[in-house]
């Protein structure tokens, strides 16, 4: 029987401290799943790993196959976005050396992350049968003081065998390069879409809601399109109190957008069982009722049929009466 020489696993040469870009024997392939935090910070992480000389592999946009794989791999009680993440991890795991999944404890002081987001690397590790290396980074401005210290990059530095400052510099540079495009001018009649970015912007979970509205002649605006200051200007009843980051984004956006006359209605897209949406949507609903703003809450899960979804959307648009 012919014995094959197995190649040494890719190791990285120790890097001289003064260089930022790293040139390893074979670049470490870092997989970034196109799910959960990806829509907000994925480009920053990708840029950071590229700066550090890694080869970044993104998973393909969510399709039915990825979703079905994820649903099979995950405990039933999880919400759809976590199941979709599991599908993306599966799509990636053959193509990469490590999969990067950050742990969002919090995004700003006194702003909480969802418990599931805090435990994502664990959840992914627990649901895989064959081991896949997960690279994680804790993000917690509540615990690590100072803007530049808010991200714990030690595990990345250890894995890449470089020093922490190099990673931090790369992250700061990546952040500068990927400043978000925020568009606050609303051209003509607009529907505000409320919800998590990883629900609204995922082509499969959202059933292409934004695209469908565009075809009917509506513009769309999401919380993420507003600048942070506007999203935090009025978050009644959580002004000055601790709450979930995403809940504050949605509440703030709903308050700010309800005052715009271009906004003809709001649609809240929520995955079934989302704990934060249960609170945020209740507050939004109460506020919009007082403002007399047309509002619809659409709940999706892995069994949502597109025809029923479309019917509800059409009924809502008919009700707005355009």
């Amino acid at each position, binding site marked *: 029987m012919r014995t094959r020489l197995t190649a040494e696993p890719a190791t990285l040469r120790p890097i001289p401290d003064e260089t930022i870009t790293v040139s390893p024997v074979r670049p470490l392939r870092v997989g970034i799943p196109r799910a959960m935090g990806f829509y907000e910070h994925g480009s920053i992480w990708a840029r950071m790993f590229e700066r550090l000389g890694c080869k970044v592999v993104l998973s393909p946009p969510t399709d039915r196959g990825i979703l079905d794989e994820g649903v099979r791999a*995950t*405990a039933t*009680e*999880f919400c759809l976005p976590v199941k979709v993440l599991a599908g993306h991890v599966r799509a990636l795991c053959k193509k990469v050396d490590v999969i990067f999944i950050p*742990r969002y*404890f919090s995004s700003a002081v*006194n702003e*909480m*992350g*969802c*418990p*599931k987001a*805090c*435990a994502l*690397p*664990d*959840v992914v590790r*627990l*649901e895989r049968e064959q081991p896949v290396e997960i690279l*994680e980074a*804790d993000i917690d401005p509540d615990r690590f003081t100072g803007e530049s210290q808010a991200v714990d990059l030690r595990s990345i530095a250890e894995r890449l065998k470089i020093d922490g400052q190099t990673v931090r510099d790369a992250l700061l540079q990546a952040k500068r390069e990927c400043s978000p495009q925020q568009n606050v001018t609303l051209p003509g009649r607009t529907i505000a879409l409320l919800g998590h970015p990883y629900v609204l912007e995922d082509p499969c979970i959202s059933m292409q809601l934004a695209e469908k509205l565009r075809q009917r002649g509506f513009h769309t605006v999401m919380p993420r399109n507003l600048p942070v200051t506007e999203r935090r200007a009025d978050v009644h*009843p*959580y002004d000055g*109190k*601790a*709450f*979930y980051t995403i809940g504050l984004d949605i509440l703030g956006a709903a308050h700010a957008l309800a005052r715009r006359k271009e906004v003809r209605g709001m649609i809240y897209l*929520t995955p*079934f*069982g*989302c*704990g*934060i*949406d*249960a*609170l945020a*949507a*209740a*507050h939004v609903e*109460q506020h919009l009722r007082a403002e007399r703003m047309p509002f619809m809450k659409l*709940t999706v899960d892995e069994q949502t049929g597109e025809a029923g979804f479309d019917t509800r959307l059409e009924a809502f648009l008919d009700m707005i009466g355009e």
Partner: protein
Amino acid sequence: MKLTFPHMGHIYIAAKVVFDRLDMDYVMPEPRNRAALEKALAVAPESICLPFKTILGNFIEGLDRGADTIVFGGGHGRCRLSYFGDLLKETLEGMGYTFHFLFIDFNHMDLRQMSAEFGPLVRGKSSFCITRALLEAAHTVFSVDRLYTKSCRIRCRELHGGDTDAVMYRFERSVLHARDAGRILAELREAHRALREVPLDPEARPLRVMLVGEIFTACEPFVNLEIERKLGQMGVDVYNTLNVSGWVRDHFLGSVLPFLPRRQPKIAAQRYTRTDDFGGLGTETIGNAALAKECSMDGVIQIYPMTCMPEIVAQAAMPHVQKQEGVPVMTLVVDEQTGEAGFITRLEAFTDMLAMRRAQSARRTG
């Protein structure tokens, strides 16, 4: 001012002691009131967890019966319970109630603010009187939890079925009707004594099951469909890892005395998760289940309300706990539509399986 407060497990007994001792006017919502819950279900967001709905039901009942002040707590954490206050207030106001909302922030206990808020309630009482009432309440919290823990030990070993339940029913009824703190404390002592006198079966070798999960659900018999009593009647010794006194100990004493040792479950959980806190008591759930074998438990039951975020994460670890520690784990998810018959069937099936497992391993070891 007439107070009302929500139920969580047996904390109402301690609340009664304080309020009676200080002559405060209050309305205690009836424990296990399905009609009040139904009223709350009509206005609560559908995918919020059952604790929110029962608390809202308690408040609706309290306000309907003439209360004008609500006492509630919260803080900042990752469990939604910390943020219930604002939504409860908004929902009740949306229903047309007017009331005063007394909110205790557990993360920022500001004594000056608290005395400003609660001062008017206890006007005319000496600080000695207030301190005594609070100490008695603290004693009651711990003593009541000891009583219920003891009842779990005794119920599964009693010689005549129903002895323990008779003691506990009598205690609960007399506490509900007592209108003075001394009476409640006397009833508590009497119940402790009566439990000691329940004749036990010396041959009994009950199955030992650990109860883990979400604290409100594990403590509140209305929400967990009296799981302790049901399992006890099946001859199972239930070790509930969650109770109010444990929470008081960890939350208050833990923050005052930071040198208390880091609790063992948190350390045990590190085998399955690389963070020591992802919200609520999720890591404790994993850690306790991981320690179950060492505590010579036959099985573990995890119980949590539908859509509870930290417990869903903990549930993901359970298949691994089961495999690596060799202890069976069953997860029960409850909501307002949980049927009692189906619930009992699952408990019976689980205990039957545990009994068979025990018999099998006894045969194997000879």
